């Protein structure tokens, strides 16, 4: 391009809409499927779980909490697809409703913990100084405990139940998010548009929420997908240890606990199917999260 042409382009630029190649959602989706077969597999599992959890009332053939003492510990059959447990409850139905519990606990804990970490992490980077120092030391303390240990401690204080389990998983999750978000936000903070916002006299809240937060969303979204998997696993672990969701609410960890200890040899299906459900779900979410990271990273994206 000659200098004259470039000048002209700068002064009176023709706004061409058609020239820009806009990729439709379908194109992007198809490309994801082609490039990330494992991620697609993960996505399918996540979608299946989502539908199952949402439509549990219609999918489950039996009431998950109803005991049927005439059909205890039955092996899988056409009536009870995955068999029954020691109380005669249909395992398939409990798995289906367990998906709902896992979804509620997993997503709520991951979302609440994630957003808490996002806002506090960005604020920590933005304000700096003593606020940053104190906040980061608090995170250090929280992160010194393994996730499940801290969750156990919180449950020990607040007691069991779905809401308390969500709180117990949120507390160890948010510092992990806060730390990573802070690191990205520190880089964003040095970019001149943040200075520009300050020079324009915007409030701190506006700068943090409108100018910095949207620019750390990419790492945050990937983190969030990992968190859902971790939260579901933590919920299952807590329930397995008897400190999570309480009987008779169907939860995978709880089913595993009831089945694995006493009936591992006599009625293996009681423990095997919830175990498989946990494994597949966490695997699916991890695979999808990894694929999402690769797909969102412009450096790995060709073309």
């Amino acid at each position: 391009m000659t200098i004259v042409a470039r000048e002209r382009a700068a002064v009176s630029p023709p706004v061409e809409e058609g020239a820009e190649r806009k990729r439709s959602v379908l194109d992007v989706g198809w490309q994801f499927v082609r490039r990330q077969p494992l991620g697609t597999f993960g996505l399918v599992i996540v979608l299946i779980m989502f539908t199952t959890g949402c439509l549990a009332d219609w999918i489950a053939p039996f009431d998950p909490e109803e005991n049927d003492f005439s059909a205890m510990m039955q092996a899988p059959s056409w009536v009870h697809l995955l068999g029954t447990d020691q109380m005669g409850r249909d395992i398939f139905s409990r798995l289906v409703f367990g998906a709902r519990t896992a979804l509620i606990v997993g997503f709520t804990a991951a979302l609440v913990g994630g957003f808490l970490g996002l806002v506090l992490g960005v604020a920590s980077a933005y304000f700096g100084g003593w606020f940053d120092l104190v906040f980061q030391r608090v995170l250090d303390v929280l992160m010194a405990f393994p996730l499940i240990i801290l969750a156990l401690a919180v449950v020990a204080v607040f007691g069991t139940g779905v809401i308390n389990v969500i709180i117990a998983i949120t507390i160890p999750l948010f510092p992990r998010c806060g730390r990573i978000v802070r690191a990205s936000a520190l880089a964003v903070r040095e970019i001149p548009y943040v200075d520009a916002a300050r020079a324009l006299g915007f409030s701190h809240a506006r700068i943090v929420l409108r100018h910095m937060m949207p620019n750390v969303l990419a790492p945050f979204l990937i983190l969030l997908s990992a968190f859902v998997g971790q939260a579901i696993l933590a919920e299952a672990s807590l329930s397995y240890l008897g400190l999570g969701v309480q009987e008779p609410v169907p939860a995978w960890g709880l089913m595993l606990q009831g089945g694995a200890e006493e009936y591992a040899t006599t009625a293996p299906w009681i423990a095997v199917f919830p175990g498989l459900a946990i494994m597949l779900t966490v695997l699916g979410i991890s695979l999808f999260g990894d694929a999402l990271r690769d797909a969102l990273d412009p450096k790995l994206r060709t073309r």
Partner: protein
Amino acid sequence: MNGVPPQPPLLEVRGLAMHFPVSEGVLFSRRIGAVKAVDGVDFSIERGETLGLVGESGCGKTTTGRCILRLEKPTAGEVLFDGRDIGRMEREELTALRRRMQVIFQDPYSSLNPRMKVGDIIAEPIKVHSVQPNARRRRERVRELLAVCGLDPKFADRYPHEMSGGQRQRVGIARALALDPEFIVCDEAVSALDVSIQAQVVNLLEDLRGRFGLTYLFIAHDLSVVRHLCQRVAVMYLGRIVEMAASDELFDNPLHPYTQALLSAVPVPDPRIEARREFRPPKGEVPSPINPPSGCVFHPRCPIAVESCQDRRPALRELRPGHWVACSEVSCHPEPQARDLSMNAKDPSLRSG
């Protein structure tokens, strides 16, 4: 500028210093020194005037600009805007000040939020400061500002990454103008643009100055741009102003040895002249601002330094009317070669800094 009775200058900087602490140790950090980015700077800018602030990278010119904008809290000194010390302003007063004082940044790629549309970027300050609560009128104002800055109003619906560097810099200028400021700090506002675009943006800045009665502090390292745009120029070296004079006076008749070296470093566009030109760069490197030389900071590299330069920090002296030099050795001696003294009378409004 034309015969108005003397008013206080729009901006006055007195003894401004910004020392960034350098600390050591992780748990119990202690201060082991300070980077003296700005170390005692005085100048003032009249209404409608453009003051150029030049110097090589790291000399503290950007930090000076940031202190004036109060993006940085200076270690010492005061910045008076319209007679009021901005360092002592409370939150509300400072917010009001933000409307009168704006900034244009160097890098057009990073000074715009990539997640916001151009229209929203320009409209946001208008909305936040409740200048125009009506959303439709605000959109009109955005279109008007885009047009003023030489952009098609259709750009309002675009994202910054869909535009070229020059176009983005115009968006930055439109954003700075959105609040109708009186004073704009142009921090290397054209340095990141290629030459043809640079000229356009400089012309735009000049045009806006006349149109809206703006006052600029133009921070730059490109001397030819500064000469073109500024009425007065201050030269900085290692956090201090070494020379300040009317633009033509400074370029035609530099008195401080550092300014002379700086001006002689500008290449001549004609390769034949350039090949024959005599160029003596100052010996050595720029000393570290953590531990600047005693006395006159330029003395280790100065061709005319004498022993006393090591101990005494030279104050700015008015050697010729409106021409201030911080050097105890030079007098008016290097007689003006090209022009004579009559040029001093060129701009009667120039005052002491």
